[in-house]
């Protein structure tokens, strides 16, 4: 296999990969003649990168990961550091990339691509006359009987539990740092434990909603968009205390200079203002550059305006919840152990 004109880009698969293919890969291949191989291993990216690094044989060129994974990779020296101002394209108006991305540059190794949020969808035909407006509806089994689906991990769920148990938004992580706070969150979750279907694959909640198996469930906003708009299911979205998160690129450490140069070239192309805005034609995730937002247009097939469906849309972002990467990097193992023990009980 000739390294010169092939590169392996790792991503999540499904509709998301398709949007990347349309927005980035195809134009890039057309420009440069580089053949892009799509690997759909993002879910195992950290593990695989670590093993590749251990073996000294890195086969991936560019990897799409969530911010938390990017930070882990960066910490462990598995991803290379990228300087936004020299190695990324500036905005059309000349704003340097570091400013254009702003706060979203959460790690030195990570170039954000989209902003997504984890939020709730609900069956419009199963919630009666009073559709839920608050996140705490998930804990209200009286008003909304039926199952709800939650992701099978502590992250997000613990925060929502505390929020709905009366903890102020800004105190959530301080409380969660303590054993009592963790107990409190689990106790809150315990009230709905029997009504929860836990999901681990992103496609689960849409399927469960479409089947009517659950009244409401958490998932990524892009998937809910697809269920509601593309598939025409009787489902609606709840924009409240949705957890804001980022997804973007890293370049594995340890690539040969030529491969590294090409990966950087790809990234520079794929994260420019227009490309990021283009991606939103195929999937309802917000571009990570401030300068891209005005360029977001219409859905490629359906022709509807995409802006109102973006998590970045001001209407939707009225009450968002910010995710604390630092906290979870430290407490992930510990809380996860407790969470799984609680689940298994």
């Amino acid at each position, binding site marked *: 296999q000739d390294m010169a004109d092939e590169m392996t880009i790792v991503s999540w698969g499904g509709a998301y990969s398709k949007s990347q293919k349309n927005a980035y890969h195809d134009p890039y291949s057309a420009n440069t003649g580089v053949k892009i191989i799509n*690997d759909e291993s993002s879910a195992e990216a950290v593990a695989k990168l670590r093993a590749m690094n251990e*073996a000294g044989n890195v086969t991936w060129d560019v990897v799409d990961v969530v911010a938390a994974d990017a930070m882990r990779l960066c910490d462990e020296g598995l991803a290379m550091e990228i300087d936004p101002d020299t190695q990324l394209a500036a905005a059309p108006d000349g704003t340097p990339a570091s400013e254009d991305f702003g706060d979203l540059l959460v790690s030195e190794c990570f170039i954000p691509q989209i902003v997504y949020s984890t939020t709730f969808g609900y069956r419009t035909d199963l919630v009666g006359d009073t559709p839920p407006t608050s996140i705490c509806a998930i804990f209200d089994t009286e008003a909304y009987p039926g199952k709800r689906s939650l992701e099978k991990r502590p992250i997000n769920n613990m925060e929502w539990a505390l929020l709905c148990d009366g903890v102020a938004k800004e105190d959530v992580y301080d409380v969660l740092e303590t054993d009592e706070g963790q107990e409190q969150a689990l106790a809150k979750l315990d009230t709905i434990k029997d009504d929860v279907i836990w999901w681990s694959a992103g*496609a689960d909640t849409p399927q469960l909603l479409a089947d009517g198996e659950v009244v409401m469930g958490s998932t990524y906003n892009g998937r809910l968009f697809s269920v509601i708009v593309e598939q025409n299911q009787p489902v609606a979205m709840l924009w409240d205390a949705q957890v804001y998160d980022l997804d973007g690129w890293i370049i594995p450490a340890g690539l040969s200079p030529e491969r590294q140069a090409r990966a950087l070239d790809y990234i520079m192309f794929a994260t420019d203002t227009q490309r990021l805005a283009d991606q939103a034609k195929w999937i309802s995730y917000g571009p990570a550059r401030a300068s891209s937002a005005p360029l977001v247009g219409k859905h490629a097939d359906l022709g509807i305006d995409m802006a109102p469906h973006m998590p970045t849309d001001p209407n939707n972002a009225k009450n968002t919840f910010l995710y604390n990467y630092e906290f979870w990097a430290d407490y992930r193992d510990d809380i996860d152990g407790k969470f799984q023990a609680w689940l298994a009980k």
Partner: protein
Amino acid sequence: MALTPVENQTPGFVAAVAASSGAFFGLFVGTSQGSGLLGILVGAAIMAALGFALSSMLDKEKPFRWALIAAFAVVGYVLGGLPAAVLGVLFGWFSGWFIFWLATSRYRAHLAPYLTPGQVLWHYTFRVICGVIFTFLITPILVVMPLSFNAQDFFTFTPEMLRFDPAGYSLKHYQDFLGNQDWQNALWNSIRIAPMATVLSVSFGTLAAIGLSQPHVPFRRAIMAILISPMIVPLIISAAGMYFFYSRIGLQGTYMGVVLAHAVLGIPFVIITVTATLVGFDRSLTRAAANMGADPVTTFFRVQMPLILPGVVSGGLFAFITSFDEVVVVLFVGSAGQKTLPWQMFIGLREQISPTILAVATILVGISVLLLATLEMLRRRSERLRGMSPG
């Protein structure tokens, strides 16, 4: 004077048994319409009447059974539209067959004359139980097939489908499978990997099985345990172990790596089936060949191989399906370039549930049936051959 008395049953008996079956079905129809008790009574009454009436007109079996089918179909259509009419046809066919089967004592014809009614009942109950278990076995396939024609993108029986509305069905998932580059790549990868892995495991495995079946093999048990181990080591452990190890030696993410991993997983099947075939293999045949001047290699290819071929083929098919249906190991050991069908399915289930998976499965089931038929034919052939040497 015939010994197994096949005489017609009294109308009373037929009516009673038919009534009990009527009551059984009536219970369901009744509860679905509101009143279980009424359903039981009506069902029993209808079947009893039919049983009584028909058992005195045994000579016109054909016309009456057609009439019953038609009648129930019409009743069904009137009550519940097309789906109910289909059910009506089924029920009409069943009730006609059942009543005549009872009335003409056909149910006793193949049973020993001394069986008591209880034993006869048990005989048929047992068969029904077995039928239920067989149904359980193929249930997933029965579910998968119609769903693969779903017009929607979810694993759901839509109301349109249940109404037999043509709009509820479509071939789009088959089109997706045939037209989508990802699926085609995956299919192509599976086709590249599975046969290669099979060839490896079959050739090494057969050789080793022959070695193991020799009379004096030192450490036979230990060797056997090692060769069987890929089957008994939990898959996740194998996958992780191979992943780390193959990464280190540069096999991870290569075609060769996946082939080797799959070959090793298929080996226990080859060893087990070929050893089983060799247990029945008559050593005097190879001795006879040697005796006539054939060297070991000639003996193997001319005498032993043709005779154990069915075992080898069957082991090979198991090895093939192991590779063709394997997802855990390939997820770890493979990379994008080796994405196989099961991997693609797995991604499909994780990232985007789409009945394309079911369409693929339906196609594969069709291929399996063909393969199984081949296997069965080979087995018959081998039995014919094996039946030859006396003793």
